[in-house]
């Protein structure tokens, strides 16, 4: 495969992609890095190019940093947990023989196509709203006091919304994985005397592990940057402020570009730590 000719061709072929991504990564990132050491507050007309690590110190020591970090991890973790357990269940269910499998699949996949803004608006107003939301009617129907999701269980509510959007993704990937399981393996385990639960635990679940890591990787990439759902529902109130959202507040609400840039750099570093960690797992899985 690899002749000198094809190798040099490969270098030329890969160059545009690497180049644009490098530019995309480096130019704004360098500017952000530059701003992060500056006192840059356009609203005050302040621009002082070098103030050392003040912004970093301020960002990292601010009372909101740790809580937002924790919120981020908790949110991403819970959504992953829900989508993966839900996805595995749905995948197994959809794999069963049934009538109208195609239609069910279409129903399940639909939330994936919905714009985050739209789904946040719909959930917030038409489901979670304590006066006019459907859930409240449900509570009232059973004679209960309506529950105010967005203030009483804000994180949970956002998790529900996002999980709803990403569950189809997990389901689809896992469904394909389930379908790729060699049926002879299941039959072999059946001959070996394994009951249904053991078959799931010892055969199906390990078989899905690769697909699960891929789901985790892709979703984490997208979940770390959740924004619209928080912006629309709670605006960061009730402890739903993630790191991304905190940076947003610094940049756009407080108009402190220097501080926000420092926050952005911190977020990049943290995201990459998570990324490297995930890539290790996935990279290993990609090899096998």
């Amino acid at each position, binding site marked *: 495969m690899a002749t000198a000719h094809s190798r040099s061709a490969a270098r030329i072929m890969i160059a545009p992609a690497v180049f644009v991504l490098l530019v995309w990564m480096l130019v704004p990132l360098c500017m952000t890095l530059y701003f992060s050491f500056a*006192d840059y*507050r*356009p*609203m*005050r*007309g*302040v621009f002082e190019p070098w103030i050392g690590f003040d912004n970093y110190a*301020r960002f990292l020591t*601010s*009372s*909101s940093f740790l809580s937002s970090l924790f919120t981020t991890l908790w949110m991403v973790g819970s959504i992953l947990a829900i989508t993966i357990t839900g996805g595995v269940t749905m995948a197994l269910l959809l794999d069963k023989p049934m009538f109208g499998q195609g239609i069910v699949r279409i129903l399940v996949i639909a939330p994936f196509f919905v714009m985050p803004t739209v789904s946040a608006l719909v959930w917030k107003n038409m489901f979670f*709203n*304590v*006066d*006019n939301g459907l859930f409240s009617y449900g509570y009232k129907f059973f004679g209960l*006091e*309506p529950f*105010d999701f*967005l*203030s*009483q269980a804000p994180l949970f509510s956002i998790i529900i919304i996002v999980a709803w959007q990403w569950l189809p993704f997990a389901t689809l990937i896992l469904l394909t994985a389930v379908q790729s399981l060699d049926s002879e393996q299941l039959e072999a385990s059946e001959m070996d005397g394994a009951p249904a639960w053991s078959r799931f635990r010892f055969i199906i679940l390990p078989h899905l592990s690769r697909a699960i890591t891929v789901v985790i990787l892709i979703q984490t990439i997208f979940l770390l940057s959740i924004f619209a759902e928080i*912006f629309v529902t*709670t*605006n*960061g*109130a*009730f*402890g739903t*402020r993630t790191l991304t959202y905190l940076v947003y*507040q*610094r940049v*756009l*609400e*407080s*108009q*402190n570009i220097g*501080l926000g840039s420092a926050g952005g750099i911190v977020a990049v570093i943290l995201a990459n730590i998570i990324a490297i960690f995930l890539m290790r797992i996935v990279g290993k899985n990609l090899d096998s």
Partner: protein
Amino acid sequence: QDQVTTLTIATVNNGDMIRMQGLTADFTDKNPDIALEWVTLEENVLRQNVTTDISTGGGAYDVMTIGTYEVPIWGNNDWLVSLNDGMADDWDAGDLLPAIAGGLTVDGNLYAAPFYGESSMVMYRTDLMEKAGLEMPDAPTWTFIREAAAAMTDRDNEINGICARGKAGWGENMAFLTAMSNSFGARWFDEDWNAQFDTQPWADTLDFYLGMMNESGPNGAANNGFNENLTLFQQGKCGMWIDATVAASFVTGADSTVADSVGFALAPDNGLGPRGNWLWAWSLAIPKSSEKQDAAKKFVSWATSKSYTELVAANEGWANVPPGTRTSLYENQEYLDAAPFAAMTLQSINSADPTNPTVDPVPYTGVQFVAIPEFAGIANQVGQQFSDALAGNQTAAQALAAAQELTVEEIEAAGY
């Protein structure tokens, strides 16, 4: 023919603005050389877009809809075009309500033309008040409001004595609470820019607010902003509602189920002098980065003129004209007849004093805000703390402590 100049106008998606969009034809008929492009966005998104635009040197918009908070700051930064001259001849600057115009003027330059102005007041259900055996004074006290709210509350019939903003945000609950705190003698900063959330007046304000809302407020009040409360009131689920004066036309309008039994009163006080009412105007400003300032001035003149008011009146009735900007409107008998809330609105607006908002002297201007660039960021976060307290997730003391801490942090970061 001549080249057509296209103006890009950023507006907030509220009713008056959308109505203006509908009347565009009137302007373009008169100015065939100008075309209008509307960018209509939800308030938060709008602010995010126009702020980014103006602070990065802008140029995307020729006319921006901004509030009383932004105008002085942006004017100070020399980002806005002064409207002292170049406006249409019949655009009568002297006719603007002094309180409103004052808030839009920096160093003698008027930097934005008010599209509509508002203060806040008490809207209440006359029928429920009667049922409770009480009578609303024209200028109630907070104590009265709290008692009346308790008396009107009838949870079985989904009637809450008091509706007020609880949703986090500097333009949501913090507008209400800051205005309210003024009447309790609280302030954001002392004259040396020290945050004041650790003082007794703030504790009193928050305790009172939480107490009243818990007794008589709606379930889920911590998520209720202007829109949510409006719906509640229109559905007949509120005994009283303290909010912007512009709401008056909606609660007495066609969408309201209780339009016939709405009364109005001044925002409450606490016997210390200031009332808990604010002052706000959605205004049209022209950024310096616009290359079409002349055309933009023509448009702003049209949109904030008396004749525009008449145009709306002719099309939609007097009750729907944008209120709170011109003295002449409140001298117009037709309007006063159509708008039972007119007098109370005018009185509310006139009684707000942005330069001396509270009992003690302050280094800033603004009634329900502090006119410094950092305010929005700080108040959003403080608002989250208070909203969290209203939701019952923390105590008033905790919320105040957190508010104090983060305000100190931010104000230090800002270099005060």
